């Protein structure tokens, strides 16, 4: 048993070296496939990142009437955090708001003057709310539009109203983009699988004569199949490692351009370094499965003798 195993591995390695050009051709097809699939993964990550960063631009600022105290707002904050789909809230006190307002209009003497003329701070305390997802805003707004709340509120921020339309459109767009990406990925993966499948079939076809000879000399199916199975696992492993080795420097090279696009909030090279192990593992498992299926399929025909 062990002796056969050692022989199978020896045969597999011999096969690889003695048909080196065929091996290289097969290997490069698998590598190209893996690089393309990795590209697909990156595009989907970038799409999600783009959507997420666009979503972060949106928030809801609720300015309360001047007589609503900070304590009251804190209790509202507690309630909505536990009952609404809210990611985070930021409290802005009326003093902070005034300071900001003064700072913002410091070059406008007329505003400065009128502010100074006021004895009391005309601004209210405010709460900036970020929802979990874009589609969660309407329910949050609805909550504040109840009469009981409406009475306490000075204004909803303009930011939100202005962006509401854009928001809806973007929501739709991201859904479309994700759907299209999914369909394209699906088609692409099917094409890639077919290419790999046929490459393996052709590689085995070139050995069809040998396979029948081995059978005629008394080899069992397992003994004939063994080296090919081992070789296909070896192909998968080598292809995965080479793919990772190619992507590593390639991503470092293009990553700065992508980061610039995201205002430096996202670095693809770092993302890849953090996830390389998983990407590599999944690609290895996927391609191994595909190779094994293709190998078993292709070889079966010639084993019948």
């Amino acid at each position, binding site marked *: *048993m062990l002796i056969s195993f050692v022989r199978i591995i020896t045969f597999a390695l011999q096969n690889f070296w003695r048909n080196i050009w065929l091996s290289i051709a097969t290997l490069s097809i698998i590598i190209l496939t893996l690089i393309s699939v990795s590209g697909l993964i990156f595009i989907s990550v970038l799409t999600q990142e783009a959507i997420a960063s666009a979503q972060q631009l949106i928030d809801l600022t609720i300015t309360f009437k001047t007589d609503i105290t900070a304590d009251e707002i804190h209790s509202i904050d507690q309630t909505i955090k536990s009952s609404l789909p809210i990611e985070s809230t930021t409290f802005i006190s009326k003093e902070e708001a005034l300071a900001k307002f003064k700072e913002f209009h410091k070059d406008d003497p007329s505003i400065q003057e009128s502010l100074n003329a006021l004895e009391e701070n005309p601004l209210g305390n405010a709460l900036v709310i970020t929802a979990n997802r874009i589609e969660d805003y309407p329910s949050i707004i609805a909550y504040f539009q109840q009469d009981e709340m409406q009475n306490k509120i000075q204004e909803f921020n303009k930011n939100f109203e202005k962006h509401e339309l854009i928001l809806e459109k973007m929501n739709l767009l991201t859904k479309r983009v994700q759907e299209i990406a999914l369909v394209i990925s699906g088609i692409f993966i099917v094409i890639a699988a077919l290419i790999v499948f046929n490459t393996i079939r052709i590689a085995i076809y070139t050995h069809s004569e*040998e396979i029948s*000879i081995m059978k*005629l000399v*008394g080899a*069992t199916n397992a*003994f004939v199949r063994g080296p090919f199975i081992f070789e296909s696992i070896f192909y998968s492993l080598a292809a995965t490692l080479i793919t990772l080795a190619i992507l590593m420097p390639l991503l470092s090279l293009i990553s700065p351009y992508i980061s610039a696009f995201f205002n430096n909030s996202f670095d693809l090279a770092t993302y890849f370094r953090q996830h390389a192990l998983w990407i590599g593992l999944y690609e290895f498992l996927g391609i191994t499965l595909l190779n094994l299926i293709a190998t078993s399929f292709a070889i079966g025909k010639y084993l019948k003798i």
Partner: protein
Amino acid sequence: MIIFKNVSKIYHPNISALKEATLHIEPGEFVSIVGQSGVGKTTIVKLITAEERPTHGTITIGGWDITHIKNRAKPILRRQIGVIFQDFKLLPSKTVDENIAFALQVSGSPFTKIKTIVPQLIKVVGLEKKEDRFPKQLSGGEKQRVAIARALAHRPKVLVADEPTGNLDAINTNEIVDLLLKINSFGTTVVLVTHNREVVNNLHKRVITLEAGEIVSDQKKGKYML
């Protein structure tokens, strides 16, 4: 050892390579099968090794009815038969050494056994110093000798030689025939397929003559009659 009972092989509705052939080959016998090209000699070889199944009739090898042999059992049958194929059937990406060793490796022979047997066989067929060549680096006669060495490697009970001297000159042919006789004298059943008149006439052994898929004569001490 080898029993064919009314065996027919029809490859195609209008190609019947063997018609109702019946023959008994006893253990330890040396039998020559002769006949013109295309009369069905190689077909008999393929039926013995279960490369082809008979369309009609039954085939028994060493008491084992292989007419409906299962695919799984074929390796066991083949490891007991040594075949020198008409077209050599050497593995192109294995060296001379490895080709011969392969017949032993399939049955899980230990490394040490292979290390001693293979050089002996190389010597027997006169291929010293060519062990590391690939089949495409060998002449026709050399390839034939590798095929012979491989067929003998696992000490088969039955040796089937399909034109083993087809590519050899007279001297080498005699050497090979002597080798076959020697193997036969140790008790191995030998089936020799040939169209070499001289070889057959010098053997003074049993000769089966085929004509268009039919056995037309079967003589105990036969001559090449065509």
